């Protein structure tokens, strides 16, 4: 048996292990689930190590160290030690007496995320969407586009009215909010449809794996 065939057998047995949950919770499923947890943790650890830790921390410090040994110069790459220092502070969470120091690292993470997301969301989710909604309501000679533009403008505006909770949803304002809910419902329906289809697509993929790659019943 070649390595590929053994691999397919392992994959097929683990696939059946997960699917066995459809019957009921059982040791075969629990084994597959536990293996998934362990393998996933290992996978992300290795990916993080090679794609972030090594290039951003280790390689930069190696450069500094070589520069120091070869030319006796202290170059700017040593600044990456600060990132490592914050990283070590994060690990101190496991030491109860000085665990509060991990808040410093957390503060750095929170500050970076807040600053980055502030501009990113304002630009992509805010301004660009508003610009995309400012459309002509009447397009000469093209009824379909005119109706489409009206739907987008009315739907976006009424949807935003629904999210405005500082005023009671009554009267004309409440009516507009109700129209907004209709558009939101259509959006949720579409998202739900796509979610179901993506899960079905995965299911078809697994069936294809079992019947085609493993059992060779489908050519």
């Amino acid at each position, binding site marked *: 048996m070649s390595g590929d065939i053994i691999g397919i057998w392992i994959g097929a047995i683990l696939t059946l292990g997960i699917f066995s949950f459809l019957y009921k919770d059982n040791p075969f499923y629990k084994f597959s689930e536990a293996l998934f947890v*362990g393998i996933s943790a290992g*996978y992300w650890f290795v990916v993080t190590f*090679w794609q972030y830790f090594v290039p*951003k921390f280790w390689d930069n410090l190696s450069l500094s160290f070589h520069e120091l040994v070869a030319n006796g110069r202290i170059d700017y790459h040593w600044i990456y030690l600060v990132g490592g220092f914050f990283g070590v502070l994060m*690990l101190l969470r496991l030491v109860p007496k000085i665990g509060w120091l991990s*808040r410093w690292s957390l503060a750095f993470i929170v500050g970076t995320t807040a600053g980055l997301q502030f501009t990113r969301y304002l630009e992509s989710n805010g301004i660009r969407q508003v610009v995309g909604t400012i459309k002509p309501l009447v397009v000469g000679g093209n009824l379909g586009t005119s109706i489409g533009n009206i*739907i987008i403008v009315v739907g976006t505006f009424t949807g935003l009215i629904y999210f405005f909770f500082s005023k009671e949803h009554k009267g004309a304002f409440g009516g507009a909010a109700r129209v907004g809910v*209709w*558009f939101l419902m259509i959006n949720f329906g579409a998202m739900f449809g796509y979610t*179901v289809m993506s899960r079905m697509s995965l299911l078809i993929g697994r069936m294809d794996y079992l019947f085609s790659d493993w059992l060779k019943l489908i050519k």
Partner: protein
Amino acid sequence: MRREVPLVLTAIVGITMIIAHFLPPLNSLKDLFEDWFFIIAAFAIILGILNLILVNGNNIYRKQKGWPFGVVVILGFLIMTIIGLGFSGGKSFQDPGTPFYYLYTNVYSPLSATMFALLAFFVASASYRAFRARNIEATMLLLAAFILMIGRVPIGYWFSDWLGDALGKTADWIMDFPQTAGQRAIMIGIALGVVSSALRVILGLERTYTSGE
């Protein structure tokens, strides 16, 4: 020290990231902060792994219910980590042909795909129980989902072929107009929420992350 330093640090880093967006000369500082961010995130992964090992190790040591599965978790983690770090060619660990790639293709990928495929059954049964056309809103959600799903598969085309693929075209129309409108309202709402939350965090009005050990 315990509360003031984190608040000041968050404010300095947050304001720098925002200003750097508008002042290109500060971009190198922004990049440096992002690099530090990833270094801290790498250490945070180590923290998570240590926690996973501690929890499962504790279950094994105390022989708690289901402890053999804790052994499987730790063994799975060790196998993937040792092979990925030591026996898969360093930075090219994900290249086809490496032992890490073999484990990814034959263990991680089937388990991950099947876990999500399993949700197809639960989504189907949950929607069967939850979806009732009780009012206009529920009916619209139901119809949008139904048309989207049937309009995107061959059977939908087969049903509406004699009408010029009406189902497929209706699905496209829903996606292009009413769905886009609803999605835009949500996206603008999210943008306003993120911006106000970020400002609260940077200005120190939101400080829940400074509590707890």
